[in-house]
């Protein structure tokens, strides 16, 4: 394999537009998702999940740390998860992950739908999907 030297453009030669900002958002939201999952798993371990949790339970907890999601898990203190802190953490994970995911789907669909009109329809549909997923998720997190 021939190695190619990487090319780094200076800032003033790079374009700054919506697509570029979403490219950056995809990377930064990925880092945020890793951080939020790590916080949730550490929180589970601090709150007495060290002995009772299986691998599947840790995954369920890491991906959505709210009390209704983990009520099937035997816990020393399940009420500790119903605090506003964990509801806010779960809400942040939901909002960041849905935005990251819906944008990812738009990127994939753009490779197959290339007409201007088709892409506009895809964008309108994706915004509707993103908002409805966020509202349904928030409703579940704050009322159940």
């Amino acid at each position, binding site marked *: 394999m021939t190695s190619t030297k*990487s090319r780094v453009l200076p800032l003033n030669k790079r374009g700054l537009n919506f697509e570029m900002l979403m490219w950056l958002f995809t990377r930064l939201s990925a880092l945020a998702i890793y951080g939020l999952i790590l916080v949730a798993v550490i929180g589970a371990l601090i709150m007495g999940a060290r002995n009772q949790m299986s691998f599947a339970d840790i995954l369920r907890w890491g991906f959505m740390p709210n009390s209704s999601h983990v009520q099937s898990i035997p816990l020393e203190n399940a009420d500790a998860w119903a605090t506003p802190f964990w509801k806010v953490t779960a809400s942040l994970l939901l909002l960041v992950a849905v935005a990251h*995911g819906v944008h990812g789907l738009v990127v994939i669909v753009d490779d197959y739908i290339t007409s*201007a009109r088709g892409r506009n329809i895809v964008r309108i549909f994706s915004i509707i999907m993103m908002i409805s997923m966020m509202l349904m998720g928030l409703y579940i997190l704050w009322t*159940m």
Partner: protein
Amino acid sequence: MGLKRNVPLGTGLRYQGRGGQLSFVLHRIGGIGMAIFVTMHIVASFFGGDIGAFLNNIYENWFFQIFVFFSALFHAINGLRITLLDLWPKLWEHQQEAIWLQWAVFIPIFGIAAYAIISSALGG
């Protein structure tokens, strides 16, 4: 806009993109897989009842669980590689090594999880 790519599927499949192309394809499959799972899960939790039970049966199937775990783990590890290399673009020269490292992390974690899921599904 109006981009035209007259590349037939066969030519596309014969494209020799090596490890990077395989990661690209699996990253997309994983992203779509997680989007399907999360959408089903939110809809099932929101509506409950018959719709919820119907969707629950699908994603509690062990075959679907292995697919979702593959999606999440591969997307997470490959995404971490892309993020780190993109934030420090000079590291792209070591892309091939990064892909080997990524598989070295992925295979043992996925293997253990798949073994656990299958053995509990078969009643072991």
